[in-house]
């Protein structure tokens, strides 16, 4: 590395002397100069750069491949799909995304405001418990709703046994296998995204604005609508983006309830071996995602809010008064549908399952598969995140921010598309690895690396670059600085990222479904299949185990917000 530096200096200085007797051709010199300028005179070592570039390439492979595949699918196929499937899919996907987003935002904001700003009894309990649905994967939620409200569900039996209900409302009007069923379930399990971000924003909000409004003669409801809500707009935007991206990428819940959005269509096209059509549908979904991200970035640029710092004071807690009972009722209803119902249904069936011997060696085999795949994924994500954040933070340049952007691409990339990209590549170029354990891990990395990058980035940004320089001046070459100083100090952040990735991997469904080798089942896959065949006593213990594993990082997230 040192040798290379020497070389660069030589070239660089020759350039300044006006180039002359040096043997290097001018183009090479100007390239060297450009290279140095790109890195602001501070290029990283080759190993670090290669690691970063490899990560960037891995992250971009599936998306590039899907786009390329769809563009080479032929005009005829495009026209057929555009005429027949795409309009319906667009309507299904967009209407669902819009409805769920609106509902999740309303629920999330209202809950956050109630449990943070009012004197509702059991404040602390509600603050924690209302974030819990985040630990319940929507496909697990869907299973429990099917058990309760489905065609052979508990409520149906109850309904048909009460002649009064049947005579007034007709024969069982509830149908979970519908738009409204999917809408309700996704809303119940995605509102915590908005709720958590809004709670954090409400806690940080500066009381002075509200006092100013009050001094100008506004009452509580005016203040909420005109001051609080408008200050919450960035939080609402961020939460809405997360929810709408989630809805567009969700496969499990949608597939369980037999509602067809893009992800489900892609999955079933591919299952029918029409990969070209699957690629086309994927491209349309990618474009939708990009449009949403673009709208968000535009609206964020338009609205910049600054909270005046320095004069932060505890927010005033508003007395609910006569609204205490309605507020409590509202919060309890959300709690009932998003936490109590799914957990108790799962507990009930798990209990039956365990007594019927569901925790057999097969079950532990699935659990072990889940554990293996999630452990390897989280270890690799921690490892890959490191060069990405180190480059971005310590060697700022176009190249390092490009790698960083690519590392985040998986965030918005639906699992089915990532899986599709890997199917193309491995099928055509790496048949030896096709449908192996390692292929799933690679696809998982593409999907979940952003979580590891995000937490690592947060922790490296707290380490002053002066710390690196101090270590350098004390005789450590850059790689040693990374090992002896940077990594030990980043460790909590790296581990937190690893934990998040671990849980996401445990929950993951579509990628595993599409890429798993024959006979390789994880807990998530088992939940999907057993629930499909209504063998609930086998699905429930696996689902419960997934939820329990997810609660651990939830604690981390809650402490962060």
């Amino acid at each position, binding site marked *: 590395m*040192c040798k290379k*530096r*020497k070389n*660069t*200096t*030589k070239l*660089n*200085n*020759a350039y*300044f*002397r006006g180039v002359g007797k040096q043997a290097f051709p001018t183009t090479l010199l100007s390239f060297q100069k450009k290279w140095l*300028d790109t890195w*602001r*005179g501070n290029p990283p070592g080759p190993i670090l750069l290669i690691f970063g570039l490899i990560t960037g390439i891995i992250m971009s492979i599936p998306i590039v491949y899907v786009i390329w595949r769809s563009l080479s699918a032929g005009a005829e196929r495009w026209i057929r799909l555009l005429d027949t499937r795409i309009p319906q899919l667009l309507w299904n996907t967009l209407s669902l995304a819009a409805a769920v987003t609106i509902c999740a935002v309303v629920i999330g904001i209202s809950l956050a405001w109630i449990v943070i700003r009012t004197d509702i009894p059991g404040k602390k309990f509600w603050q924690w418990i209302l974030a819990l649905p985040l630990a319940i994967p929507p496909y697990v939620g869907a299973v429990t709703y099917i058990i309760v409200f489905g065609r052979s569900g508990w409520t149906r039996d109850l309904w048909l046994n009460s002649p009064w209900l049947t005579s007034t409302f007709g024969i069982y009007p509830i149908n979970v296998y519908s738009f409204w069923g999917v809408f309700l379930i996704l809303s119940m399990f995605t509102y915590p995204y908005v709720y958590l971000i809004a709670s954090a924003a409400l806690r940080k909000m500066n009381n002075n604005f509200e006092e100013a409004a009050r001094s100008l003669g506004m009452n509580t409801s005016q203040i909420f609508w005109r001051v609080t809500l408008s200050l919450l707009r960035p939080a609402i935007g961020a939460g809405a983006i997360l929810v709408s991206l989630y809805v567009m990428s969700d496969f499990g819940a949608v597939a369980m309830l037999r509602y067809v959005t893009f992800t489900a269509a892609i999955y079933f096209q591919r299952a029918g071996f029409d990969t070209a059509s699957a690629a086309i549908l994927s491209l349309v979904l990618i474009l939708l995602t990009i449009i949403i991200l673009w709208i968000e970035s535009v609206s964020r640029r338009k609205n910049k809010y600054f909270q005046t710092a320095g004069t932060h004071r505890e927010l005033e807690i508003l007395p609910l008064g006569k609204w205490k009972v309605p507020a409590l009722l509202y919060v309890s209803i959300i709690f009932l549908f998003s936490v109590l119902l799914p957990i108790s249904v799962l507990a009930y069936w798990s209990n039956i399952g365990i007594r019927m011997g569901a925790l057999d060696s097969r079950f532990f085999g699935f659990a072990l598969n889940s554990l293996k795949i999630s452990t390897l994924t989280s270890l690799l994500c921690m490892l890959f995140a490191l060069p990405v954040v180190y480059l971005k933070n310590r060697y700022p340049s176009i190249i390092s921010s490009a790698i960083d952007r690519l590392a985040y691409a998986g965030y918005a990339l639906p699992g089915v598309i990532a899986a599709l990209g890997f199917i193309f590549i491995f099928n055509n170029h790496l048949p030896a690895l096709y449908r192996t354990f390692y292929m799933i891990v690679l696809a998982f990395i593409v999907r979940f690396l952003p979580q590891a990058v995000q937490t690592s980035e947060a922790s490296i940004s707290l380490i*002053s670059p*002066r*710390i690196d*320089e*101090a*270590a*350098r*001046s*004390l*005789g*450590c*070459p850059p790689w040693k600085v990374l090992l002896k*100083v940077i990594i*030990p*100090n980043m460790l909590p952040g790296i581990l937190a990222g690893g934990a998040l990735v671990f849980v996401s991997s445990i929950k993951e469904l579509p990628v595993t479904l599409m890429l798993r080798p024959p006979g390789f089942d994880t807990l998530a896959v088992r939940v999907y299949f057993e629930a499909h065949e209504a063998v609930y006593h086998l699905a429930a213990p696996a689902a419960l185990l997934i939820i329990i594993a997810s609660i651990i990082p939830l604690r981390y997230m809650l402490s962060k917000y």
Partner: protein
Amino acid sequence: MHAIELKTITKKYPGAEKAAVSNLCLTVEKGEIVTLLGPSGCGKSTTLRMIAGFKKADKGSITLAGNIMSSSNTWIPPERRGVGMVFQDYALFPHLNVFNNVGFGYKDRDRKERIAEIIELVNLKGYEKRYPHQLSGGQQQRVALARALARKPVVILLDEPFSSLDADLRNHMRLEVKRIIKESGATAIFVSHDQKDALAISDSIVVMNHGIIQQKGTPQEIYQYPRNKFVATFVGQTNILKGKTGEDKYSVITALGAIRRTQPHGLKPGEEVYVSIRPDSLEVNHEGQIKGYIKELTYTGQSIDAVVEVIADDNTKLHLLTHIHPQEHKKVGEPVRLEIIPHFISVMPSCA
């Protein structure tokens, strides 16, 4: 052999209009403490970072103890320069205790003894097991200094080391840091924008502005004989007047009349000059030639800063700063007379 030798070093940041440092030449002798003094953006930190090896000079050479560190065909990375560095925020390793911070990167067989010795030197005995967040600001600075000195560096570089300390501690640490560096025998370069730091601690001061050395000299030289208007105004308080040199070698003609120095100014007659009169060279008394009235009074404790408004020869108003003894009771608006004591009057060519 000089401890540090900088030859015509130049650094221009990509995208910047002007060079941050241009054609800077500087030599520092072994054991000397030098301060690079200047306003922010004057290039002092860039110079320091080039010596440490964190920035690469576009041009010129850097030699430390006779070894070329950076030149047109040499580049030694910071870890092999043998330079100790103390950072503004100390940059202590948060995951290591005092002992391991000081011993970081020190691998010789006498590690334990050396660390103990240096911890003793900075008066931190008994704190070896503490972590940086358990230390006060002054203690953190001692650790930073000990860490930089542990490997017996050729040169120790200190980047605004006092700026995050409060005033009391700052005065104390100046003396303490000077003692430690002198005892260790290291050659030191400080970077500071605070003239008090510079005057108190340095053997010599290098005043910089716009990437160029304005003047190098001992603290007394810099204060008493500033070479140009920038140095005169940046170091200490002063009154600057425009003028012309008179026929004899001693006098300068200004709006306040002819001012006669005790020493020759060494300039040709009739040259355009600036005259710098320190507040201490203006005395308020009854015999003074200059008549004015008090415009502003600021009580500082040791003295009172008084701004005196004077009508000059060309009928313009001049505001002159002077110090009054705190026991003297003067009021704003009161007429006073000023006398110029010719000792600390500097005359500088207006083009310098």
